[in-house]
């Protein structure tokens, strides 16, 4: 979709669909919305309006990570099966070359999923039934009861950092571990691959200052 005011764009889209009602009846559509930043409620409203016309909104392709995140929370797809060429990450103008990360400042409830090329940081809990997927490492400033997958493209050096781990499904690269917290054990933990297995250890600040 082009540039301009969102309410106008939305209206012109709906008009377009109304004009060609036969063609769109029962269709599943993916919308490409470029750089527009849309809130979850706006996406939800659009989905409901499309539903009134018999059209199912199943994916929203966006250049804005915020919009994509909002689309994901509504259970909409954010990628077509033919992936677009990867976006070029701007280099940061600092002396340190950091890695890309997405920051998720909320609790992930059952059914929610965060998927990102890079590292994922969550401030909040990851409840049972929620999933995190990252090509890099995962850091959860809260409780992990759901699934966390780090290094999904095969990076065995990825880690999963968690303030408190309950029953959790961990995967790093292609190694799985269903971890249950032993009674009485508490505090920050880190999971990483050692000798082909996922090892969960208590976080000890001094030892972990690597590199």
């Amino acid at each position, binding site marked *: 979709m082009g540039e301009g005011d969102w309410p106008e764009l939305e209206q012109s889209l709906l008009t377009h669909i109304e004009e060609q009602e036969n063609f769109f009846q029962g269709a599943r559509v993916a919308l490409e919305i470029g750089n527009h930043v849309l*809130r*979850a*409620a706006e996406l*939800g409203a659009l989905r*409901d*309006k499309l*539903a*009134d016309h018999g059209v199912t909104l199943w994916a929203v392709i966006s250049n804005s990570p915020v919009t994509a995140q*909002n689309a994901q*929370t*509504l259970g909409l797809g954010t990628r077509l099966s033919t992936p677009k060429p990867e976006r070029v990450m701007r280099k940061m103008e600092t002396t340190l070359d950091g890695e890309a990360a997405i920051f998720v400042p909320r*609790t*992930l*409830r*059952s*059914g*929610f999923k965060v998927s990102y090329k890079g590292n994922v940081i969550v401030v909040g*809990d990851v*409840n*049972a*039934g929620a999933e995190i997927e990252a090509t890099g490492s995962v850091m959860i400033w809260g409780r992990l009861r759901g699934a966390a997958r780090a290094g999904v493209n095969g990076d065995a050096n990825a880690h999963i950092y968690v303030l408190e781990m309950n029953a959790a499904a961990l995967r790093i690269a292609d190694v799985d571990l269903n971890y249950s917290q032993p009674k009485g054990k508490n505090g920050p933990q880190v999971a990483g691959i050692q000798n082909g297995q996922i090892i969960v250890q208590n976080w000890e600040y001094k030892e972990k200052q690597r590199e």
Partner: protein
Amino acid sequence: MTAKVVTVTSGKGGVGKTTTAANLAVALASHGDKVVCIDSDIGLRNLDVVLGLENRIVYDLVDVVEGRCRLKQAMIRDKRLPELYLIPAAQTRDKSAISPSDMVNVCDELREEMDWIFIDSPAGIERGFRNAIAPADIVIVVTNPEVSAVRDADRIIGLVESEEKGPARLVLNRLNPALVKRGDMLAPEDVLELLAIELIGIVPEDEAVVVSTNRGQPVALDGKTRAGQAFQNIARRLKGEQVPFLNIEGAEGFFQKLSKMIRSGGN
């Protein structure tokens, strides 16, 4: 007056959505508020049975939406409580017969004349659920102290939040204090810790609910049963009153602890 639209939902079936919606509506109507209940469980209606009004259905919600009758004609007035109305669901259709904007339109038409509009949501997270929460001002999530029900409640709360209808409020239904004491049932604190939303009421497991449901006489009609009293208290909390939580077990410690937790914000 401008009505508040309260949607009662849960995700999982059988946890007591319809019972909760019926009893809160009855409790508020018995305080003299004008209340209408809408059954949005199209194809599987049963709010009419719980309210004891199933023999009086002429028109239903789908008839209103499709223009076969006026809204007033579909509103069944309760004979026990003159301020209580029911708009029943259609039984011969399914959820796709109405859309979220239909629900918003129906509620907007009712708002001027009512104090409360209760919407009984179907189980699940599909079209029927979206219809039910579209017009909501307040969402009440009902759950039982069981892991499966709590998991579904968590999912529903997340969906409510992402539709920006939150924060949802929690009713913990069918709590059995004896089982909790033995450690065989999730305690209210466990449920609250996981769901991290505001608790608006705990309803104890009570045989009177089964009896009253079959008779079409909601327990809240007379506040003598424990469950009926719990529903009356939730209704008063909805009206903004500060009502202490029922001490279901007599002098047991954890309810005091619980009410302290709630006062300090619940999480």
